[in-house]
């Protein structure tokens, strides 16, 4: 139905296209309504985090009976009862380790692969790159059972290797970084380095990698967040409490602290607050990066 109307309007418009006039700036009476709506929505977006922050500073009785809009005094008590039976900082640093190494592995090898596809005209380049792009369409769960059995037969359960090494093949990153490499690395620069006697890998490491670093950095932010947030894979691969990543440990905390709400809210805050602080500093870069390649699903 709509399209019929559209076509008519489009035809009508195309006749008048070349005429250009300054946009009329009228203060619409709806402006107040728009801002009210935006503020309500912003409050809605932030409320769960606010409740989390406030509740982490109140004791269990207070949380259970009231809705708190002001901070209380029980933050340290909650924190102490949390760390008594849950190695939460262990989980924090486990997550930090896994996310950092995965980001480095993914960033370096994605740049390497993207550079290989972008700058070398070898046989099968096009076909192999199509395979890389096609692999983004396949859901991770398809090979899930096989992956678990493979890891199990390699005796790598409770090991971070199966969480980190598969990041060598990150199709989305390769796609994103290749798009940047095509424009950022000039052939003449590589030729000059070759004449000076540089090896191919030296050229990549010393010349190409610094040039494509902005793309690698943007992609690294998203790799880091995705790894930090990953739940399903660590859930099946890690069974030893000392190896748990933060999300696994937090969900486990619900079993440990059945009714100690203050401790659990504090536990959630420990993973959420660093992300919020990081976002406060990098929000421009993160939001800008989202639309640079349009690759994140």
């Amino acid at each position: 139905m709509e399209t019929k109307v559209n076509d008519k309007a489009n035809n009508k418009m195309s006749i008048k296209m070349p005429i250009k006039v300054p946009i009329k700036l009228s203060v619409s009476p709806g402006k107040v309504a728009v801002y009210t709506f935006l503020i309500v929505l912003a409050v809605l977006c932030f409320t769960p985090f606010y409740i989390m922050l406030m509740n982490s500073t109140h004791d269990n009785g207070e949380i259970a009976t009231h809705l708190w809009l002001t901070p209380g005094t029980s933050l340290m008590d909650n924190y102490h009862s949390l760390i008594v039976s849950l190695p939460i900082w262990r989980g924090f640093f486990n997550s930090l380790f896994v996310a950092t190494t995965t980001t480095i592995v993914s960033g370096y090898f994605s740049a390497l692969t993207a550079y290989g596809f972008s700058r070398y005209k070898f046989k099968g380049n096009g076909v192999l790159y199509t395979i890389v792009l096609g692999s983004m369409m396949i859901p991770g769960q398809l090979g899930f059972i096989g992956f678990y059995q493979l890891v199990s037969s390699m005796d790598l359960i409770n090991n971070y290797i199966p969480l980190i090494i598969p990041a060598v093949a990150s199709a989305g990153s390769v796609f994103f970084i290749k798009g940047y490499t095509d424009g950022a690395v000039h052939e003449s620069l590589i030729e000059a380095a070759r004449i000076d006697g540089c090896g191919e890998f030296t050229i990549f490491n010393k010349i190409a990698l610094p040039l494509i670093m902005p793309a690698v950095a943007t992609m690294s932010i998203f790799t880091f967040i995705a790894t930090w947030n990953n739940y399903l894979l660590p859930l099946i691969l890690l069974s030893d409490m000392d190896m748990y990543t933060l999300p696994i440990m937090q969900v486990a905390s619900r079993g440990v602290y059945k009714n100690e709400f203050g401790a659990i809210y504090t536990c959630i805050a420990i993973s959420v607050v660093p992300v919020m602080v990081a976002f406060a500093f990098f929000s421009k870069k993160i939001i800008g990066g989202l639309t640079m390649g349009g690759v994140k699903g």
Partner: protein
Amino acid sequence: MLKRKNKLDKGRYGIFFIIPYFVAYIVFSIYPIIYSFYISFQKWDGMSPDATFVGLANYSKLIHDPVFYQSIINTFTIWGFAIVPQMGFAILLAVWFNNSKMMGKETFRAIFYLPNLITPAAVALLFSFIFDWQTGAANNILLKFHIVSEPINWFLGEMTSRGIMSLIAWWMWFGYSMIIFGAGLKNIPTELYEAASIDGASAWQSFTSITIPLLRPTILYSCVTSLIGGMQMFDVPYVLTGGTGRPGNTTLTMVMYLYNTAFQNLNYGYGAAIGYGLFMLILIFSIITFKVINRNAEYE
């Protein structure tokens, strides 16, 4: 091919740059996919050395499994109630923010996008306490403003449980879609809107005649990626219901069913078959989404 004559041509070296990628891809993706396919023809608890070959039994069981169909319905219900408001809010906000004169739009965009960055498992844990029927903040708020007279037991009801999951999905993703649509809107030439306003088109007419048709590729991209992501929904329903999909399997998603079958009930063969069923569904529905959204475009 003239390049080949260049003595500095090092084209074949490229293969060394991409070898690590393909080794990792074959070992950690291709091999597991093939191995899963092989396991799906077996009855196997994952531990014992002898797995029994059962042929297509797992697949015929899958076709007749009411729980599998239930999990499809659940996944689509939760996704469906989230995607409609998600797209609606995203388009509305993106259009508003496309007006460069708007004050504070960067701040609003950042706030709306923030929930997307937070660990879904932590979000689910947080919401499970906010919607706890005895002590949760949600009931506290509703009682305080006298919207309800007694606390609602959210996770006892089928639609309230699914509703909370849809709410979380909407909350986490509308900001993301908003930013993607914002990028799509930037590509629409402003001349079109100017011309339309000269012709006396109202804001609504410009919206339906210019914005929506020209934004169609972006909407398609968002719908397909959201569908693929939505059908793999796991973290939030799993954590909210403690892995049970309560009440009575009505919030059991497809991936939860796969996980529970393989890793809780140790039926790896059937779990692998569910994985392939999930893959086929994602394939089919991605194609349908493409067709539906492109249908109008084909006539132009």
